[in-house]
């Protein structure tokens, strides 16, 4: 099978949907003439022209709102944030408009829009450029939140997101755009809200999503060498969450570790922990543990980044803790 980069998978998803549906268009900073700040939309201006691939000024609140307005009136915008750090400038239109429109209009106006771009840390960029907001958006009813961990999933999930009739937040990573993977040429769709068991196992469940899933997978490989069999679940969507897949796994392994890049308070791991203790309390053989970013703005220095982000060592240790093997 052919191998393509994560960014190409995203580009294919957008381009295929734009060929299929003339109401789909892409809008954001540097998406057209510059071919995308991270080259995700490379060549799309050439194919679709400036009516459908639109460069905006640096005016996130304005263009997010224009996207939402257009979505209520017959179009299906894809709005790119150069990174989700800058989506905070636009968050009023995402939360107060996109997420509320259908409800406050009593079901009259739905908002089929995708807000996409990279989330979370990407090296030494310091605190304003390193934030993981998956749980912030997931907290808000009315939105769906997708956080793919690989190019194959990204393509299938983005196509679903574009066809979805509700607002979808689609969160990528600068550090994944260059990742290469086998992606079939034939069309496929991955439904939102369905987790993926990346690796079957019997001793412990590790739940993760997005870029940081790599840490979970690497930890599982490390543990395998020591005879510990970890089951790794990629949530893929953090709103809605596929609780069943998690609960069923925990019923089998009786132990759970969650790995995510957000800050700990009110995170996806807090939510999953609540749900598992509620629905699978009797199956747990150890308290649930999690590995998150440190409870601080991510600083610039490599020593502090190392001390802050989830990594394999911390994940392996958390797993051994729940297995009482430390």
């Amino acid at each position: 099978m052919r191998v393509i980069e994560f960014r190409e998978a995203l580009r294919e998803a957008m381009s295929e949907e734009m060929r299929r549906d003339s109401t789909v268009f892409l809008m954001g900073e540097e998406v057209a003439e510059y071919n995308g700040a991270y080259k995700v939309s490379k060549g799309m201006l050439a194919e679709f022209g400036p009516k459908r691939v639109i460069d905006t000024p640096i005016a996130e609140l304005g263009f997010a709102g224009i996207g939402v307005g257009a979505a209520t009136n017959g179009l299906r915008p894809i709005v790119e944030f150069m990174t989700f750090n800058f989506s905070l400038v636009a968050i009023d239109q995402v939360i107060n408009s996109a997420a509320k429109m259908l409800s406050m209009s009593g079901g009259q106006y739905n908002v089929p829009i995708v807000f996409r771009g990279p989330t979370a840390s990407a090296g030494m960029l310091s605190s304003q450029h390193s934030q993981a907001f998956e749980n912030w958006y997931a907290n808000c009813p009315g939105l769906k939140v997708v956080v793919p961990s690989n190019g194959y999933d990204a393509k299938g999930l983005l196509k679903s997101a574009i066809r979805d009739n509700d607002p979808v937040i689609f969160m990528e990573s600068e550090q994944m755009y260059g990742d290469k993977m086998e992606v079939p040429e034939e069309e496929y769709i991955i439904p939102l809200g369905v987790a993926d068991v990346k690796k079957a196992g019997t001793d412990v469940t590790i739940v993760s999503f997005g870029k940081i899933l790599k840490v979970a997978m690497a930890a599982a490989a490390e543990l395998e060498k020591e005879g510990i069999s970890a089951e790794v679940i990629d949530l893929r969507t953090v709103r809605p969450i596929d609780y069943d897949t998690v609960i069923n796994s925990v019923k089998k392994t009786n132990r759970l570790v969650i790995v995510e890049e957000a800050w700990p308070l009110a995170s996806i791991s807090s939510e999953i922990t609540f749900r598992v203790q509620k629905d699978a309390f009797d199956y747990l053989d150890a308290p649930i543990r999690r590995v998150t970013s440190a409870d601080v703005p991510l600083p610039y220095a490599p020593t502090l980044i190392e001390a802050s982000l989830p990594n394999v060592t911390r994940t392996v240790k958390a797993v051994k803790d729940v297995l009482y093997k430390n």
Partner: protein
Amino acid sequence: MAKTAEKKSKFSKEQYMKWYESMLLMRRFEEKTGQVYVQQKIKGFCHLYIGQEAIVAGTVSATKKEDKHITAYRDHAHPIGLGLHPKYVMAEMYAKITGCSKGKGGSMHIFSKEHNFLGGHGIVGGQVPLGAGIAFAEKYLGTDNVCVCSMGDGAVRQGALHEAFNMAMTWKLPVVFIVENNMYAMGTSVERTSNVHDLWKLGLAYDMPSKPVDGLTVESVHEAMEEAVARARRGDGPTFLEMKTYRYKGHSMSDAQTYRTKEEVKEYQKQDPIEKVIDTMKKNGWIDDAGIEAAEARVKALVDESVQFAEESPYPDPSELYKDVYADADYPYILE
């Protein structure tokens, strides 16, 4: 009796010498920054100020030391112009604990409370209301200090600017807003972002005194700033100055620059702000080749010292992670 040439100059030899050496330091410092970035001694995003030096130099000469300054992420030159030893900026970019932000901010977040430089901000336009707020505090506290709030041309399209301009003008806040119009926001030219290409005119919507300034000529910057700062100090409120300038290098260290031609860059380099100052000084007989060499040597020594200091300093210890997040020393962090 003064020579004829000397009479023509409004500014003193000392002033020119200061401008020259300050701009030269910014230039050589940024050149070195570019070099060590390529050697991966500095990581992350890094935006050089080369070409724009006259704006900081003319701003510093037109303000007093109690005045406050704030800008975006293209921020290495501001604190240096204000008198911060460049070694603290270099160490910051090297992510060392001796850096002016303890290695926590990096290139985009240079701060120096000692020199009244309130940073280096990474969200385009975010510092514009902050600048107005800093000025609000000066007015509230009854000082005659002024805030100089700088931004790039990309920032003027943000809603935050328009809200802040309106309030700053309505409340007559002592702030001077400067847009450093280097013609591009990343790969997007000013022309492609609006029908309003004369950025200074945006201030007129709020009845704010506004005007274009030759930002490649330090004397013009100084004079425009002097007038604006005086207005703010006497309580007559903000000014909006569009400094027309140019950045010689890419937006950041990773920029293929397909959006402009090499010829355009060369054309602007002919109006180099440092060369202009040297010309004037030479015409007045204030500097000769030996003087230039001596200045270059002094600046080189400072830059070399900065790199050495940065190289030799340690990274922050991991125990720094839970410091400087809250003013409380005993804040109960969630540790897992």
